[in-house]
C-alpha cells in the first residue's frame, strides 16, 4: 500500500474514532449477471452465517439495493474491519422487457420486472453518489471488460475518490480470462475469484482489510 493510502487510512481512523463516524458502506457494483449477489451472499455467509438475497440466471434478479450491517472481516494477524455490505442492482443504460420474455417469462411479469429493474438501476446510481464509501466492482471474467458501462462506472467511482477493488469473477468457468480485466483496469487491484465456488476469497478479504480498513 502506498504512503498516500496509509496516511489516508490513519487519518480516517482518527476521524472515525473522534467523531464516532458510521461504519463504511461498501457497495458491490457491476453490470447485470456479474455475480454480485452470489459474492455478497458468500461474504455475508462467511462472516455472519447469514445471506443477502436470491440469485438467478435471469438478469436483474436484484432490483433493490440490500444492505447487511456490521460485517467484521479479520485475518490471522489480528487485523479487522467492520463494514456494511450493500448489494446493488446491475447497472446498465438499457432495459427491454422482451429480454425477460426470452427467458420464458410471461409478458406482464416481464414488464413488471423491467420497471422494477429501471428503478433499481436509478437507485444504485443514487447510492453511489450519496452513500457509498468504497466499491467492489464485479466483472464476469468470461466477457469482454471493455464495455461502455464498465468504463463509465469505474470513471464515476474514480471521480468520487472511492477506494475500489475489481473482482474478476467466474474463474471456475473454462472461458475465464482475468488477465483481460487486468489489462482494462491496470490502475486498480484485480482479484480473480469464483463467488460460486468460493475460490480465492482469502485474497479478497486481505485486500478488503487493506483498502477498506
Amino acid at each position: 500500500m502506498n504512503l498516500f493510502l496509509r496516511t489516508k487510512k490513519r487519518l480516517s481512523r482518527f476521524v472515525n474514532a473522534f467523531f464516532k463516524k458510521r461504519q463504511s458502506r461498501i457497495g458491490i457494483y457491476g453490470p447485470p449477471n456479474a455475480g454480485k449477489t452470489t459474492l455478497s451472499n458468500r461474504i455475508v455467509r462467511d462472516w455472519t452465517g447469514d445471506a443477502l438475497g436470491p440469485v438467478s440466471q435471469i438478469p436483474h434478479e436484484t432490483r433493490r439495493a440490500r444492505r447487511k450491517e456490521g460485517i467484521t472481516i479479520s485475518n490471522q494477524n489480528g487485523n479487522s474491519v467492520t463494514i456494511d455490505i450493500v448489494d446493488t442492482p446491475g447497472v446498465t443504460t438499457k432495459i427491454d422487457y422482451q429480454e425477460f420474455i426470452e427467458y420464458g417469462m410471461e409478458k406482464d411479469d416481464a414488464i413488471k420486472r423491467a420497471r422494477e429493474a429501471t428503478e433499481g438501476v436509478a437507485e444504485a446510481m443514487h447510492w453511489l453518489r450519496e452513500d457509498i464509501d468504497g466499491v467492489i466492482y464485479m466483472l464476469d471474467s468470461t466477457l469482454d471488460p471493455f464495455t461502455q458501462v464498465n468504463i463509465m462506472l469505474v470513471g464515476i467511482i474514480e471521480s468520487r475518490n472511492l477506494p475500489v477493488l475489481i473482482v474478476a469473477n467466474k474463474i471456475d468457468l473454462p472461458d475465464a480470462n482475468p488477465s483481460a480485466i487486468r489489462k482494462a483496469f491496470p490502475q486498480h487491484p484485480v482479484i480473480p475469484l469464483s463467488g460460486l465456488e468460493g475460490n480465492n476469497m482469502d485474497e479478497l478479504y486481505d485486500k478488503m482489510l487493506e483498502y477498506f480498513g
Partner: protein
Amino acid sequence: MIQGVQINLISGDRLDKMTTMEKIRLILDDVIEGNIVVLETGLTPDEQSKLIEVTMLEITPDGFSGIEMETYAPKRSSSMGGGFFAKLLGKKGSGTRMTVIGPANQMKTIKKDKDLISAWVSSR
C-alpha cells in the same frame, strides 16, 4: 423526402453554457425522438451518473428502451496539465471526450478500441 437518421453534433461551447440537467434533457429529448447525439466534449462522471439515472426513469414498455453510449476513456489529468492545481482552481470537465449517444434499439457498437469507435445505426 429523405429517409434516414438525424445526427445532432453539439459543440463544446454550447455544452459549457449548460447545467447538468439541461444537458441531460437535451440529450434524452433528442434520443427519445430517435436522433443520434454527438457531444464534442462529452460529460463529466457525475453527469454520466445522472444521465443513467434519468434514462432509467424514461424507459417505457414498447417505447424507449434506453441509450447506447460510446466515448473514449477520460484522459488522465497529469497529461492535461491539470491534476491538483486544476482541482484547486475549480477547472471543470477536464478529461471528458467526444461522446456518441443514441437509442439502444437503433444504435449498436460494432468495434471499439482506444482510438476508434465504430457504430451501426438503423432508422426506426
